Each structure stands twice: as structure tokens, then as C-alpha cells.
């Protein structure tokens, strides 16, 4: 699980950013809203989604 998170951060995150900027959102303008360093995640349901995906994969 932890390895998945680490790989997600170092592999998938930059890869997806690259794909999004160059292919999907080519004509968009990008900016930074704010760095949410000390804020919590509002939607706690989000933390269940990886498990649900994993259940779906393994079924």
C-alpha cells in the first residue's frame, strides 16, 4: 500500500501532469490557487476509493 503511494507520487503524478499539460489540457491556462499545506482533506470518502478500486480489480 505504501509502495503504491510512493510510486504514485514519484511516477504517476509527474506523468499525469505531463500528459495533462501537453495533450488533454493543451489550450488551457494554468495557475496555482494556493498551497494547502496545513489544511485537511474535506472529502474523507476519497480515502475509501482506492480500496474500492482494489476490490473491483481483484473480483
Amino acid at each position, binding site marked *: *500500500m*505504501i*509502495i*503504491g*503511494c510512493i*510510486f*504514485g*507520487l*514519484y*511516477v*504517476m*503524478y*509527474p506523468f*499525469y*501532469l505531463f500528459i*495533462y*499539460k501537453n495533450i*488533454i*489540457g493543451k*489550450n*488551457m*491556462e*494554468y*495557475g*496555482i*490557487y*494556493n*498551497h*494547502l*499545506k496545513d489544511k485537511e*482533506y474535506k472529502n474523507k470518502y*476519497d*480515502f*475509501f*476509493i*482506492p*480500496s*474500492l*478500486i*482494489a*476490490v*473491483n*480489480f*481483484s*473480483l
Partner: protein
Amino acid sequence: MNTIPETIKDIFLSRGTIDEGFTIINTFLAGFVLTLFLALFLYSPVWYFLNSGIVFSNKKKVDDFVDSIEIRSIRNWYRAILRGYAGIGLVITYLQFLVTTFNKFDDADLAEQIILLVFIIPFLIIVVFSGLPVILFLEYTKEIRFKYINKITEKFKSSNKVNLIMDKIDKK
């Protein structure tokens, strides 16, 4: 030579009177360890996008049109796909799983079927909680994560700060 699923099956195989049904459950649990890795690999960027605070606007695209300008998080599109898969996809697959498992237990007596019913139905709910320790991981790696995310964001060249200015429409 055994294939990978067969090897996993052998490792987690429980011998019993209703052997075949237990094999399904054990294979599922063995597979779950691997798929949880894959699921977090795919889904964890959604949290990182939120941390990075990168948003995009369609201003350039709709400048010559009547369409309204939208500012959205970069993660929305990706998240919508995965949430759809986790939600609707899971319900369909889970029903299939229930039907297959109960068919395998056709020969079991009433007591075994009741135990099975009590175990299988809340099974998904119990399994879903297994992904929650990720919250601890995210909390403990906060500093390292933000450092890396900021580094990537700088490379992304989106250092423009977004100012949200809206005129309030009020009758009073």
C-alpha cells in the same frame, strides 16, 4: 509449471468440505494485496494534485465565445473516471461475485450457508477499511511530499497565482 494465479491460489488454499468456495475467497484476498498497490498507484495522484493546488482555466479557449469562464482543479477529470469505476463498476462486479460464490456453495448445509451469508455480505465493508492506513502515511510524509510536489509544480511552470475576483450580485 504453475502460472502466477495458480501459485497464489496454492499458497492461500484452504482445504475443507466446501473447498472450491473458499478458494475463491482466498484467491480474492491474495489478489487484493496486489490490486491495492495498483489502486493506490493510480489513485494517489488525486491527493497530490489537491496538495499542489494547480488549477486550470478555459479563459483562452472561450475568449471569443459566449461560454462562461471556468476555473477547475486539474484532478477533476482523472478523479471522475476512477470514482465511476470504483462506484458503479464495483456494484456490478460484487453482485457477480456473490452469485458465483453462492453457486459454489450449493451443496453446503443450512448452517454453513448461514455462516457464509453472515461472512460474505459484510465482507466488502470490512475489506474496504483496509485501505485507511494510507491516511497515516500521508500525515507522516507531509513534509517530504510537499517538498517534492512544489519542485514538480515549479517545473510545470504554473507559478501564476490565481486571483478569484467576482462581483457580488445582491438586490439590497
